[in-house]
């Protein structure tokens, strides 16, 4: 692993940043990419097996754990698991209620899923960078394994674009198509004079359109950027001689505990805020 010349260091980093891609290769047909060139050649019609596997596994783990607590939920004295789960649910519920004035049965579960799922995906970052890839490569013969789903831009965009779709759906459902488009067209510049009001429309659409489109992009890239950078630093630390790695990886990991929680919280909070904006007239 450590310090075997510049070329292998680069190869090590690239290897760690390469997803396990399955798709239709122009020459090889349906196959798993053996190199990053093959992966690029597969284009859009390919999937990252590792990202999907880990994200779905973690999501299933989250739902299994919370379902277990939910099945035994009692209004009496709660057990340890119920206590733990309840404290998270209550935390999310409080944030939802503080942000939204409209009651919704959907936003609470949405925010809870995002918070715990994103947290778990980020948490994979704290597992030493070589453990799982080494196991998959040398025991199972899988060439690439990127274990932190949130360092995959597809994953973060998958969630943020879903949130974006929900924003538009609830926006139209709550305010009607006219109200939704009106908000885009007659804000922030408006006038009592009808002609001037309509003259402002192009500027408003431009401004509001950009700010609307910026929401999913910033949501996805913020999480992706943070996690990708954090993962990269772990990989760089792993290039050091193993005797001194702990001196850097331990402080970084401790700091990272804060980062992964904060990023999960920000993602959840912004989702709630966007949902609140979609539900309310302003």
């Amino acid at each position, binding site marked *: 692993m450590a310090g075997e010349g510049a070329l292998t260091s680069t190869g090590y980093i690239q290897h760690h940043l390469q*997803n396990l*891609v399955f*798709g239709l290769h122009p020459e090889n047909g349906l196959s798993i990419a053996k190199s990053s060139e093959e*992966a*690029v050649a*597969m*284009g*859009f*019609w*390919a*999937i*990252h097996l590792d*990202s*999907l596997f880990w*994200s*779905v596994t973690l*999501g299933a783990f*989250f*739902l299994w754990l*919370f*379902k277990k*607590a*939910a*099945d035994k*939920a*009692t*209004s*009496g004295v*709660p057990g340890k698991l*119920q206590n733990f*789960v*309840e404290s998270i*649910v*209550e935390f999310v*519920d409080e944030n939802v209620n503080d942000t939204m004035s409209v009651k919704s*049965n*959907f936003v*609470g*579960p*949405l925010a*809870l*899923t995002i918070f715990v*799922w994103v947290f778990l995906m980020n948490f994979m970052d704290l597992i030493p960078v070589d453990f799982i890839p080494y196991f998959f490569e040398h025991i199972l013969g899988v060439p690439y394994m990127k274990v932190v789903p949130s360092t*995959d*831009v*597809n*994953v973060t*965009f*998958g*969630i943020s*674009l*879903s949130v974006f779709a929900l924003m538009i759906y609830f926006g139209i459902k709550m305010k009607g198509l006219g109200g939704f488009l009106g908000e885009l067209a007659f804000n922030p510049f408006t006038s009592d004079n009808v002609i001037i009001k309509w003259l402002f429309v192009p500027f408003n659409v431009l401004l509001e359109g950009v700010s609307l489109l910026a929401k999913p992009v910033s949501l996805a890239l913020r999480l992706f950027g943070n996690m990708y950078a954090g993962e990269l630093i772990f990989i760089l630390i792993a290039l050091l001689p193993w005797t001194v790695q702990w001196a850097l990886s331990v402080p970084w990991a401790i700091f990272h505990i804060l980062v992964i929680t904060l990023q999960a919280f920000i993602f959840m909070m912004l989702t709630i805020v966007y949902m609140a904006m979609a539900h309310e007239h302003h």
Partner: protein
Amino acid sequence: MNINLTLIGQAISFFIFVLFCMKFVWPPIINSLRERQARIADGLAAAEQSSQRREEAEAEIATMLEDAKAQAAEIVAQAQKRSNEIVEASKDTARTEADRIKNSATAEIEQEVVNARESLRKQVGSIAVDGARKILGGEVNAESHAKVIDDLVGQI
């Protein structure tokens, strides 16, 4: 950083997770939370109510205690009065008894004095008669001079 089908797969699994969470996870937990909140609120209300009831009971106890104290004081006062009366009555009885004893003793003494005087008188009379007989040599007869002797005796 290739954008590919993973994005759509991720979005699909995200929606499935959210729907599962909304259907099976969120409602039971949030319901048990709300229920517990209600139960705690009820419990607190009941505690407040019972503490209020306790205060009322304490006030009642205080009045009862005061009544009991007043009653006790009254009983004590009555008892004291009654004992005073008994003491006074027994004092009176004792005094009367003492007077009676004293009177009877006085009467007895007086009786004794009278008796003693009487016997003394008689003795003095006979002594005087004896003395006179010895002096006069039998001329004095007790019977014939009884009047004189009685006079003398009366003068003693």
